[in-house]
C-alpha cells in the first residue's frame, strides 16, 4: 500500500513539474533579435562624457537650426502671453512642466527664438540643489553675474531688483529639489526671492512633471505660479510628423509625386502615397512601442531599419518593428526600485547623494548604481578624481518606460 502511495506521489510530482515546464517562459541564452534590450538602448549613449568641475552653464541657443514644434502651439501661445503681461508690468511666475524626454529644452529654445523683445534672455541649468539660504541666493546671483557674498535675503531682493530686466529660463527646476536637510529652507528662500523680483525679471521655470506634482503637494507651489503649461509626450499625429522630418537621417528618401495620370485611368497607386501610408502605419505601431517618447520611437525605427536592407519605409511592415524588452525592470528588487525612483525624480544623482538619501554607505550606494547601470536603466558620467561624484541619470530614451514601471510599482505618484 505504501509503495502504491509513493508511486502516486511521484507521478503527481512529475506531472506538476511538467506543467511548470510548459507554463514557465523559456529563457534563451542569446538575446532575441525582435527585441531591443534596455542594455542595448543604454549602449547608444556609450560616451556620456567625463565629469569635470561642476558649474552653472548657460545653454546655447540654436537660432539657425531650429526644428519646428510639434503639437505645442497652444503652450507656446500661453508662454508668449505670460511674457507680454510681464512687459506690461503685470509679471507673474510661469512654469512649463514636461516629463523627461518630451522636448522641454526644445520648447524653450523655440520660445526664445520667437521672442523679439529688447530684453536680454538667459537660459540656465542649475547644476546642484541649494542646501542653505546662502546657496539659494548665490544660485540666483549667478544669473546676474553678481559675485559677492549675499548678506541677507532683503539685500538680495533689492540687489536683484536693481539689475537690468531679463527674461530668465531655468530649464531644470527639478534639480533644485533634493531630499537632504537644508533644502527645504533653501527652496523657501528661492521662492521668496522669485516672488519679490517677478515684476522686474520674467522667471520661467521648466520642471519635470512628477517633480512638479511632488512640489505641489509638499510646498503648494502651484499657488505661486500663475501660468503653468503642461507638455506631454507626443501623440500619434505628432509622432508621424516627427518621423517624416527625420527620414533623411534614417537614410530614407521619399519618391517624387506622380504628376501625370495614366490615360486609361487605371488605379495605379502613387509611390509617394504608398510611402505616406507606410509612415502612418509605422507611427501607429511606434506609438504603442514608445508610448509617445520621441527619442525611443526614432531609436526603434532606426534599429529596425538597420536589421533589414531597406531604403523605403513601405518595405518595412509595422509588425517587423523591434519592440523593447523590459524584462530587466521586472527583475529589480524593492531597494533598486526605490533608488531608481529617486534618480528619476532628481533628474540624476551622484553616488554621494544616493548614500545620503538612503542612509547607506558610499560603497553600497556605488554598487547599487553600478548594478542599475549594468541593467541599462541608468547611464553614468564618471568623475576621474572621486568615485563618490560619479553621476548617474536615467537612460534618456527609457524615461517613459521607467516612469510607468515606477508608478505601477507604487514608487512614483501622480496627484
Amino acid at each position: 500500500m505504501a509503495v502504491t502511495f509513493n508511486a502516486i506521489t511521484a507521478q503527481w510530482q512529475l506531472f506538476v513539474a511538467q506543467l511548470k515546464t510548459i507554463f514557465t517562459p523559456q529563457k534563451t541564452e542569446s538575446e532575441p533579435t525582435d527585441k531591443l534590450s534596455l542594455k542595448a538602448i543604454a549602449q547608444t549613449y556609450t560616451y556620456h562624457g567625463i565629469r569635470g568641475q561642476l558649474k552653472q552653464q548657460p545653454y546655447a541657443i540654436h537660432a539657425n537650426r531650429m526644428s519646428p514644434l510639434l503639437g505645442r502651439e497652444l503652450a507656446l501661445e500661453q508662454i508668449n502671453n505670460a511674457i507680454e503681461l510681464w512687459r506690461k508690468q503685470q509679471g507673474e511666475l510661469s512654469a512649463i512642466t514636461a516629463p523627461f524626454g518630451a522636448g522641454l529644452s526644445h520648447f524653450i529654445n523655440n520660445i526664445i527664438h520667437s521672442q523679439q523683445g529688447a530684453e536680454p534672455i538667459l537660459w540656465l541649468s542649475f547644476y546642484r540643489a541649494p542646501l542653505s539660504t546662502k546657496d539659494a541666493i548665490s544660485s540666483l546671483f549667478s544669473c546676474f553675474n553678481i559675485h559677492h557674498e549675499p548678506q541677507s535675503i532683503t539685500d538680495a531682493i533689492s540687489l536683484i531688483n536693481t539689475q537690468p530686466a531679463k527674461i530668465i529660463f531655468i530649464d531644470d527646476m527639478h534639480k533644485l529639489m533634493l531630499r537632504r536637510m537644508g533644502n527645504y529652507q533653501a527652496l523657501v528662500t528661492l521662492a521668496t526671492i522669485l516672488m519679490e523680483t517677478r515684476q522686474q525679471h520674467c522667471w520661467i521655470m521648466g520642471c519635470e512633471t512628477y517633480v512638479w506634482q511632488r512640489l505641489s503637494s509638499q510646498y503648494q507651489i502651484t499657488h505661486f505660479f500663475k501660468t503653468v503649461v503642461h507638455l506631454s509626450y507626443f501623440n500619434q499625429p505628432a509622432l508621424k510628423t516627427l518621423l517624416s522630418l527625420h527620414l533623411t537621417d534614417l537614410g530614407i528618401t521619399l519618391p517624387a509625386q506622380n504628376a501625370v495620370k495614366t490615360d486609361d485611368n487605371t488605379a495605379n497607386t502613387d509611390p509617394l502615397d504608398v510611402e505616406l501610408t507606410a509612415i502612418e502605419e509605422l507611427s501607429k505601431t511606434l506609438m504603442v512601442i514608445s508610448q509617445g517618447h520621441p527619442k525611443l520611437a526614432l531609436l526603434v525605427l532606426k534599429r529596425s531599419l538597420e536589421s533589414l536592407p531597406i531604403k523605403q519605409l513601405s518595405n518595412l511592415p509595422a509588425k517587423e518593428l523591434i519592440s523593447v524588452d523590459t524584462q530587466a525592470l521586472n527583475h529589480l528588487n524593492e531597494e533598486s526600485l526605490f533608488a531608481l525612483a529617486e534618480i528619476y525624480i532628481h533628474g540624476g544623482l551622484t553616488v554621494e547623494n544616493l548614500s545620503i538619501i538612503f542612509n547607506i554607505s558610499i560603497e553600497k550606494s556605488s554598487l547599487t548604481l553600478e548594478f542599475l547601470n549594468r541593467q541599462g536603466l541608468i547611464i553614468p558620467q564618471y568623475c576621474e578624481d572621486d568615485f563618490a561624484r560619479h553621476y548617474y541619470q536615467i537612460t534618456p530614451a527609457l524615461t517613459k518606460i521607467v516612469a510607468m514601471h515606477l508608478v505601477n510599482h507604487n514608487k512614483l505618484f501622480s496627484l
Partner: protein
Amino acid sequence: MESSADALQSLINIISFEKIAIIVLICGLAWAMLVGIKMSLDLLTNKLPKYRLLWGRLYPFIRLFIWGSVITYATVGIIAPHQNVVLAMIGSISIVIGLATQEPAKNMIAGFIIMLNPPYRVGDMVTLGGHYGEVTKLEWSVTWLRTFDDNTIMVPNAEALKTAVSNANSGALDEMVAIQFHLPVQVDHKKAMALAKEATQCSPYTFLNKPINVILGTDFSFGQHLQTITIKAYVMDVRLEKKFISDINVRVLDAFKNAQFYDSQQTF
C-alpha cells in the same frame, strides 16, 4: 396532493450515480476556474503591485459567487428535489449543523457579514484578536494575518464582529504612522519641530502627497519636564511601516544630535 411514497422515490432518485457524477464534475470545474482566477490575480499583483489591494479584494467575492452558483445550480438544476424533501432535509440538516457546528457556523456567518460590510479587506493592516498585521486571506470562517515578525495568524471571523477592529489604512496603500520623540524641555522647540518635519520629508519612504504634521506636547516623567515631538506622516506602502519608522528615527535623531539638543540636557 402527492403521496409520501412519491417523495421517498424522489429522495432515492437524488442519489443516482449520474447526478453525483455531474455534481462532482461541476465542482471540479469550479475549483479549476478558481485556481485559474487566483493565478491570474497573482500575476496581476506581480505586474501591477500598485493595485494589489484591489486584486486581493476581488478574490473572496469571486469565490463566493462561484460556489454560490455551483450550489444553486446543483440543487435546483440537477437534483431538483421534491418540495417536501427539500423542507424535510433543510429541517434535519439545520438541526444537525446547528448542534454540531455552532462555532464554525458562527464564523462562517461572520465571514459572510464581513464580505458584505467589511471592517477590513485583503491588504489592510489591522489589529485583530490582539494581533497586528496585514490581512493576507479572507476566508469563509477565518481571516489570515501576516505580522511584521513574519508569523501567519489565523483569526476566527466571529472575533472580528465580537471585538473592536483597528484598521490602519482602510483600503489605501499608504498609512499614517505616528513617531514620538522626547527632548529636554530647555531645547528650542520651534527648531526641533522644523528639524523633525524636514527630516521626515527627506525619507524616501514618506508619502509626500499627504501632509506631514508635527505636534508638540509636554510630559513629566522620571522627575524631569520633557517636551514631546510627535511626527504624523504617511508611509508609501503599509508593508514598509517598520522600515519607515526606523528611517525616521535615524534621520530625526541625527538632526537632533547635530543641533546638539541632547547635549543641552547635560549643561542644565
